[in-house]
Protein backbone atom coordinates (compact mmCIF):
# COMPACT_ATOMS: atom_id res chain seq x y z
CA UNK A 1 0.00 0.00 0.00
CA UNK A 2 1.17 3.55 -0.74
CA UNK A 3 0.15 6.42 1.53
CA UNK A 4 0.29 9.91 0.07
CA UNK A 5 0.42 12.71 2.63
CA UNK A 6 0.38 16.47 2.52
CA UNK A 7 3.19 18.33 4.30
CA UNK A 8 1.44 18.71 7.66
CA UNK A 9 -0.10 15.22 7.59
CA UNK A 10 -3.72 16.37 7.88
CA UNK A 11 -4.62 14.77 4.54
CA UNK A 12 -3.71 11.20 3.66
CA UNK A 13 -4.64 9.17 0.61
CA UNK A 14 -4.14 5.42 0.37
CA UNK A 15 -3.78 3.39 -2.80
CA UNK A 16 -2.88 -0.28 -3.19
CA UNK A 17 -0.67 -0.15 -6.26
CA UNK A 18 2.21 1.81 -7.67
CA UNK A 19 1.07 4.21 -10.40
CA UNK A 20 1.57 2.91 -13.98
CA UNK A 21 2.72 6.38 -15.08
CA UNK A 22 2.81 9.96 -13.83
CA UNK A 23 1.57 13.01 -15.69
CA UNK A 24 3.23 16.41 -15.67
CA UNK A 25 0.87 19.00 -17.13
CA UNK A 26 1.71 22.56 -18.19
CA UNK A 27 -1.74 24.14 -17.83
CA UNK A 28 -2.15 27.28 -15.75
CA UNK A 29 -3.16 25.46 -12.57
CA UNK A 30 -0.81 22.46 -12.79
CA UNK A 31 2.19 24.68 -13.46
CA UNK A 32 1.43 26.74 -10.39
CA UNK A 33 0.82 23.74 -8.19
CA UNK A 34 3.85 21.81 -9.45
CA UNK A 35 1.70 18.69 -9.30
CA UNK A 36 2.62 15.30 -10.73
CA UNK A 37 -0.52 13.26 -11.24
CA UNK A 38 -0.91 9.55 -10.53
CA UNK A 39 -4.20 8.30 -11.95
CA UNK A 40 -6.54 5.97 -10.07
CA UNK A 41 -10.28 5.51 -9.90
CA UNK A 42 -12.44 6.42 -6.91
CA UNK A 43 -12.70 2.69 -6.25
CA UNK A 44 -8.90 2.42 -5.98
CA UNK A 45 -8.11 5.44 -3.77
CA UNK A 46 -9.13 6.08 -0.18
CA UNK A 47 -9.13 9.59 1.27
CA UNK A 48 -8.36 9.50 4.99
CA UNK A 49 -8.76 12.97 6.43
CA UNK A 50 -11.03 14.72 8.85
CA UNK A 51 -13.97 16.62 7.45
CA UNK A 52 -12.93 20.11 6.57
CA UNK A 53 -9.26 19.21 6.12
CA UNK A 54 -9.42 19.86 2.38
CA UNK A 55 -10.90 22.47 0.08
CA UNK A 56 -11.88 22.05 -3.55
CA UNK A 57 -11.04 24.61 -6.21
CA UNK A 58 -13.24 24.55 -9.30
CA UNK A 59 -12.70 26.96 -12.17
CA UNK A 60 -12.99 27.39 -15.94
CA UNK A 61 -15.47 24.94 -17.40
CA UNK A 62 -16.03 23.56 -13.88
CA UNK A 63 -15.52 19.86 -14.60
CA UNK A 64 -12.63 19.16 -12.19
CA UNK A 65 -12.27 19.71 -8.43
CA UNK A 66 -8.68 20.42 -7.37
CA UNK A 67 -8.21 19.63 -3.69
CA UNK A 68 -5.61 21.08 -1.32
CA UNK A 69 -4.95 20.85 2.39
CA UNK A 70 -6.48 23.73 4.35
CA UNK A 71 -3.47 23.86 6.68
CA UNK A 72 -0.33 23.50 4.56
CA UNK A 73 -1.87 24.19 1.15
CA UNK A 74 -0.39 21.14 -0.49
CA UNK A 75 -2.32 20.05 -3.59
CA UNK A 76 -3.40 16.50 -2.74
CA UNK A 77 -5.71 15.20 -5.51
CA UNK A 78 -8.28 16.02 -8.12
CA UNK A 79 -11.60 14.44 -9.05
CA UNK A 80 -14.29 15.01 -11.63
CA UNK A 81 -17.23 17.10 -10.53
CA UNK A 82 -19.43 14.27 -11.92
CA UNK A 83 -18.45 11.25 -9.86
CA UNK A 84 -18.93 7.51 -10.16
CA UNK A 85 -17.16 4.59 -8.54
CA UNK A 86 -14.89 4.34 -11.57
CA UNK A 87 -14.37 8.03 -12.25
CA UNK A 88 -10.86 9.41 -12.07
CA UNK A 89 -9.18 10.08 -8.74
CA UNK A 90 -5.80 11.70 -9.49
CA UNK A 91 -3.34 11.69 -6.59
CA UNK A 92 -0.54 14.25 -6.47
CA UNK A 93 2.51 11.98 -6.49
CA UNK A 94 4.56 14.78 -4.88
CA UNK A 95 2.77 13.68 -1.72
CA UNK A 96 3.91 10.06 -2.12
CA UNK A 97 7.16 8.71 -0.65
CA UNK A 98 9.96 8.95 -3.18
CA UNK A 99 10.61 5.22 -3.29
CA UNK A 100 6.95 4.65 -4.15
CA UNK A 101 7.34 6.45 -7.48
CA UNK A 102 10.98 5.80 -8.31
CA UNK A 103 11.32 4.41 -11.82
CA UNK A 104 7.76 5.31 -12.82
CA UNK A 105 7.66 6.93 -16.25
CA UNK A 106 6.66 10.60 -16.35
CA UNK A 107 4.49 11.66 -19.27
CA UNK A 108 4.25 15.31 -20.37
CA UNK A 109 0.73 16.52 -21.07
CA UNK A 110 0.14 19.77 -22.96
CA UNK A 111 -2.88 20.96 -20.99
CA UNK A 112 -2.01 24.56 -21.87
CA UNK A 113 -2.66 24.18 -25.56
CA UNK A 114 -3.14 20.96 -27.61
CA UNK A 115 -4.61 18.87 -24.75
CA UNK A 116 -2.43 15.93 -25.88
CA UNK A 117 0.60 14.08 -24.56
CA UNK A 118 3.73 15.59 -26.11
CA UNK A 119 6.28 12.82 -25.55
Amino acid at each position, binding site marked *: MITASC*HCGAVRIEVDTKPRSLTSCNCSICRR*LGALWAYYTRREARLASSKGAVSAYVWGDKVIE*FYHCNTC*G*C*PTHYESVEKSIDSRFAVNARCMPEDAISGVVVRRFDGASSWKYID
Partner: protein
Amino acid sequence: MPSGGRTLTSSHSHEGACHCRAIGFVYRTALEPQQWPIRACQCTFCRTHVALSTSDPLGSLRFIERVPAALNRYRFGRKTADFLICRECGAYIGATMESGGKSFGIINVRALQSVLDLVREPQPMHYENEGSGERLARREARWTPIAVD
Protein backbone atom coordinates in the same frame (compact mmCIF):
# COMPACT_ATOMS: atom_id res chain seq x y z
CA MET B 1 22.75 52.82 -4.91
CA PRO B 2 25.57 51.05 -6.74
CA SER B 3 26.26 47.62 -5.41
CA GLY B 4 27.84 44.65 -7.08
CA GLY B 5 28.05 46.60 -10.31
CA ARG B 6 24.29 47.14 -10.54
CA THR B 7 22.00 50.04 -9.91
CA LEU B 8 18.28 50.12 -9.17
CA THR B 9 17.54 52.65 -11.87
CA SER B 10 16.44 50.09 -14.45
CA SER B 11 14.40 47.76 -12.30
CA HIS B 12 11.41 46.00 -13.81
CA SER B 13 8.14 45.20 -12.15
CA HIS B 14 6.83 41.62 -12.24
CA GLU B 15 3.29 40.89 -11.07
CA GLY B 16 2.57 37.37 -9.91
CA ALA B 17 -0.51 35.75 -8.46
CA CYS B 18 -2.05 32.52 -7.33
CA HIS B 19 -4.31 30.81 -9.89
CA CYS B 20 -7.54 32.52 -8.76
CA ARG B 21 -5.69 35.83 -8.25
CA ALA B 22 -6.93 36.23 -4.69
CA ILE B 23 -3.36 36.83 -3.53
CA GLY B 24 -0.33 38.04 -5.43
CA PHE B 25 2.78 40.15 -5.38
CA VAL B 26 4.68 42.87 -7.18
CA TYR B 27 8.37 42.05 -7.47
CA ARG B 28 10.83 44.70 -8.62
CA THR B 29 14.31 43.74 -9.73
CA ALA B 30 16.92 45.08 -12.14
CA LEU B 31 17.83 41.53 -13.10
CA GLU B 32 16.41 40.04 -16.29
CA PRO B 33 14.48 36.78 -15.72
CA GLN B 34 17.30 34.88 -17.50
CA GLN B 35 19.68 36.10 -14.75
CA TRP B 36 17.48 35.28 -11.79
CA PRO B 37 18.87 32.78 -9.32
CA ILE B 38 16.37 29.92 -9.22
CA ARG B 39 16.57 27.85 -6.05
CA ALA B 40 14.79 24.56 -5.53
CA CYS B 41 14.89 24.13 -1.76
CA GLN B 42 14.89 20.43 -0.89
CA CYS B 43 12.88 20.69 2.34
CA THR B 44 9.69 18.65 2.53
CA PHE B 45 7.41 21.65 2.07
CA CYS B 46 9.21 23.03 -0.98
CA ARG B 47 9.54 19.59 -2.52
CA THR B 48 5.82 18.94 -2.19
CA HIS B 49 4.97 22.30 -3.75
CA VAL B 50 7.93 21.99 -6.17
CA ALA B 51 8.70 25.58 -5.25
CA LEU B 52 11.07 27.64 -7.38
CA SER B 53 12.38 30.47 -5.23
CA THR B 54 14.01 33.68 -6.31
CA SER B 55 14.91 36.95 -4.65
CA ASP B 56 17.07 40.03 -5.08
CA PRO B 57 18.49 41.84 -2.03
CA LEU B 58 18.65 44.99 -4.20
CA GLY B 59 15.05 44.66 -5.37
CA SER B 60 11.77 45.16 -3.57
CA LEU B 61 8.71 43.05 -2.97
CA ARG B 62 5.14 43.70 -1.97
CA PHE B 63 2.52 41.01 -1.35
CA ILE B 64 -1.10 41.77 -2.20
CA GLU B 65 -4.32 40.41 -0.70
CA ARG B 66 -7.15 41.01 -3.17
CA VAL B 67 -9.65 38.75 -1.44
CA PRO B 68 -9.93 39.17 2.32
CA ALA B 69 -9.20 35.98 4.29
CA ALA B 70 -7.73 34.18 1.26
CA LEU B 71 -4.17 34.41 2.58
CA ASN B 72 -3.05 31.39 4.58
CA ARG B 73 0.23 31.98 6.44
CA TYR B 74 1.66 28.51 7.05
CA ARG B 75 4.50 28.04 9.52
CA PHE B 76 6.34 24.84 10.21
CA GLY B 77 9.69 23.54 11.44
CA ARG B 78 11.52 26.38 13.20
CA LYS B 79 8.59 28.69 12.44
CA THR B 80 10.86 31.53 11.35
CA ALA B 81 9.05 32.29 8.09
CA ASP B 82 5.47 32.56 6.84
CA PHE B 83 4.73 30.54 3.71
CA LEU B 84 1.96 32.29 1.79
CA ILE B 85 -0.72 30.03 0.31
CA CYS B 86 -4.09 30.84 -1.24
CA ARG B 87 -6.97 29.27 0.68
CA GLU B 88 -9.09 29.28 -2.50
CA CYS B 89 -6.87 27.63 -5.11
CA GLY B 90 -4.03 26.19 -3.00
CA ALA B 91 -1.19 27.91 -4.85
CA TYR B 92 1.96 28.78 -2.89
CA ILE B 93 3.23 32.22 -3.98
CA GLY B 94 6.14 33.06 -1.66
CA ALA B 95 7.37 33.52 1.89
CA THR B 96 8.22 36.31 4.29
CA MET B 97 10.23 36.65 7.46
CA GLU B 98 10.96 39.45 9.90
CA SER B 99 14.30 40.31 11.41
CA GLY B 100 15.52 43.42 13.19
CA GLY B 101 12.30 45.29 12.47
CA LYS B 102 12.57 44.64 8.74
CA SER B 103 10.75 42.19 6.48
CA PHE B 104 12.24 40.09 3.74
CA GLY B 105 10.65 37.83 1.19
CA ILE B 106 11.03 35.36 -1.64
CA ILE B 107 8.65 34.61 -4.47
CA ASN B 108 7.66 31.29 -6.00
CA VAL B 109 8.43 31.75 -9.70
CA ARG B 110 5.54 29.37 -10.47
CA ALA B 111 3.23 32.30 -9.68
CA LEU B 112 4.75 34.19 -12.64
CA GLN B 113 3.48 32.21 -15.59
CA SER B 114 4.87 34.80 -18.04
CA VAL B 115 8.50 34.14 -17.10
CA LEU B 116 8.41 30.48 -16.10
CA ASP B 117 9.83 29.33 -19.44
CA LEU B 118 12.60 31.96 -19.43
CA VAL B 119 14.33 31.24 -16.17
CA ARG B 120 17.39 29.11 -15.58
CA GLU B 121 17.45 25.51 -14.40
CA PRO B 122 16.75 25.40 -10.67
CA GLN B 123 19.64 24.73 -8.31
CA PRO B 124 18.81 22.20 -5.60
CA MET B 125 19.42 23.77 -2.17
CA HIS B 126 19.95 21.96 1.12
CA TYR B 127 19.50 24.11 4.21
CA GLU B 128 18.68 21.47 6.80
CA ASN B 129 22.06 21.55 8.54
CA GLU B 130 22.34 25.30 9.04
CA GLY B 131 21.93 26.81 12.49
CA SER B 132 19.11 29.24 13.26
CA GLY B 133 21.44 32.29 13.30
CA GLU B 134 23.01 31.17 10.08
CA ARG B 135 19.58 30.79 8.49
CA LEU B 136 18.53 34.28 9.53
CA ALA B 137 21.76 35.79 8.20
CA ARG B 138 21.45 33.91 4.91
CA ARG B 139 17.89 35.14 4.38
CA GLU B 140 18.73 38.74 5.35
CA ALA B 141 21.55 38.74 2.80
CA ARG B 142 19.72 36.95 0.01
CA TRP B 143 15.98 37.62 0.30
CA THR B 144 14.22 40.67 -1.15
CA PRO B 145 13.36 43.56 1.19
CA ILE B 146 9.60 43.94 1.59
CA ALA B 147 8.55 47.41 0.40
CA VAL B 148 7.51 49.72 3.20
CA ASP B 149 4.56 52.06 2.59
